[in-house]
């Protein structure tokens, strides 16, 4: 599979559309264990990102992703702003000035993104955050890819793991982020950030399906 800069832009557009569509759902998840703003935050950020895309349409993938990252940092705020912002920035640094990515490049970019989130958020898996869907998703994708699966089916396996990870946040006790203030009462609710991360992964698969 060859992922071009145009595909990356399509992916970003699809994320922006999904976030807008799921804005109230994400916000509602956040009202149970947070402060009722996750969907609103991301929608504000990706709406601005959309206005920046024309300016990088002819740029390399690294430049596109870094623009997305800095825009998110500058517009989202809250916890998810620096986290997703850092994720896209690191992914952009990993891809550098390339105009096309292969499977290994994509995996490397995703790993860089995850590492960025973890170092910025000082979090590990099992704390009921976005990395609980992202982490298992990347693991599964890598494993399936290493097992020589067709890359698209590897991505499908990754997405399934990502979704399972998202659902696994429900019984977790939060120890990071705003939900941690609730203590035991954080149990029984799906983490909003893990959910938005899954929605982004889903958008990625949908774009990939359009490529092959």
């Amino acid at each position: 599979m060859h992922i071009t800069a145009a595909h990356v832009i399509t992916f970003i557009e699809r994320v922006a559309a999904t976030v807008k569509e799921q804005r109230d759902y994400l916000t509602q998840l956040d009202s149970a264990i947070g402060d009722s703003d996750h969907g609103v935050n991301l929608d504000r950020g990706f709406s601005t990102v959309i206005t920046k895309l024309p300016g990088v349409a002819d740029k390399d993938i690294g430049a596109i992703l870094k623009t997305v990252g800095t825009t998110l940092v500058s517009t989202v705020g809250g916890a998810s702003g620096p986290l997703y912002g850092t994720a896209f920035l690191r992914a952009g640094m990993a891809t550098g000035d390339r105009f096309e990515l292969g499977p290994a490049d994509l995996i490397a970019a995703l790993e860089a993104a995850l590492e960025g989130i973890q170092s910025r958020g000082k979090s590990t898996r099992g704390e009921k955050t976005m990395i609980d869907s992202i982490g298992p998703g990347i693991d599964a994708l890598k494993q399936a890819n290493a097992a020589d699966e067709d890359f698209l089916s590897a991505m499908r396996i990754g997405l399934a793991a990502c979704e399972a990870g998202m659902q696994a946040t429900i019984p977790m006790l939060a120890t990071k982020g705003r939900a941690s203030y609730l203590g035991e009462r954080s149990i029984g609710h799906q983490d909003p950030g893990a959910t938005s991360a899954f929605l982004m992964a889903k958008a990625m698969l949908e774009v990939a399906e359009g490529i092959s």
Partner: protein
Amino acid sequence: MKKLINSPDNVVKEALAGMAAAHPDLLTVSYDPDIIVRADGPVKGKVGIISGGGSGHEPMHGGFVGMGMLDAACPGAMFTSPVPDQMLAATKAVDGGKGVLHIVKNYTGDVMNFEMAAEMAAAEGIEVAAVVTNDDVAVKDSLYTAGRRGVGVTVLLEKIVGAAAQSGADLAEVKRIAEKVNAQGRSMGMALTSCTVPHAGKPSFELPDDEMEIGVGIHGEPGRRRVKLASAAEIAEMLATPIVEDLPFASGDHVLAFVNGMGGTPLIELYLMYNELNTILKAKGITISRNLVGSYITSLDMAGCSFTLLKLDDELTKLWDAPVHTPALRWGV
């Protein structure tokens, strides 16, 4: 949802425009990035003091910009940490050559955004120090969690540290005092009703008519536990005891007692709660030598209150008493 607003998207900017129009002598507002800056700043040779956080907690922080308190405030979207661009712009705007202190409430978002801003400011050659407030005893503290929230102590810290900076203290000294205030202060809050975030359009949580939330923060998040409605005396006990036991405050201590309304609480109830707190502390041999009663760190239209106790010594008392001139706190001038 019943609010005096035009549209959820414009609440923050329009309220900022109102503040700018109401207090041109004290502050100026810039937009994109949104910051509220002391009108006569930057003050040359003074450490700059900035703070910030989500909107919806008014008068905090914008209402504390002015002589003897904050040099700038960074208002984020509703209940959402501001972005690094705001803190960077504010840091530059208040830099009087002696460095800038960032007052950060301990929320993951606030901490990360302020950290990024501090990195950027350092890259531009401005010396920045930060203090993170984490005074909410409702939250269990641990190395392995996000830790305690910053709540009521933030207001007292901004006043006291603002006075220290105004009196000429250098950045290290200002930071020392900031950390001392945070170390000696504790808070706890409760809610009779949820608040309604404009974008959400409905209450953040449903609370039956005969129940209340104990141990809430300031973002409409549910508290630590939900209990049956109780009398003012019982509620005061539920808030005061964990605070007193946590530091702990002891017989003979002098404290600043701060009874805070959450935004939808009438003042008459706050004075009634102050009376209860005063009675409880008296019985424990703790003397209230300064107090603050009113709605200063709020959670939109939430009904409820919080208590904050700050252990005082001569240094902190003198700084608390020093003149301050901001929209929300003013004395001595």
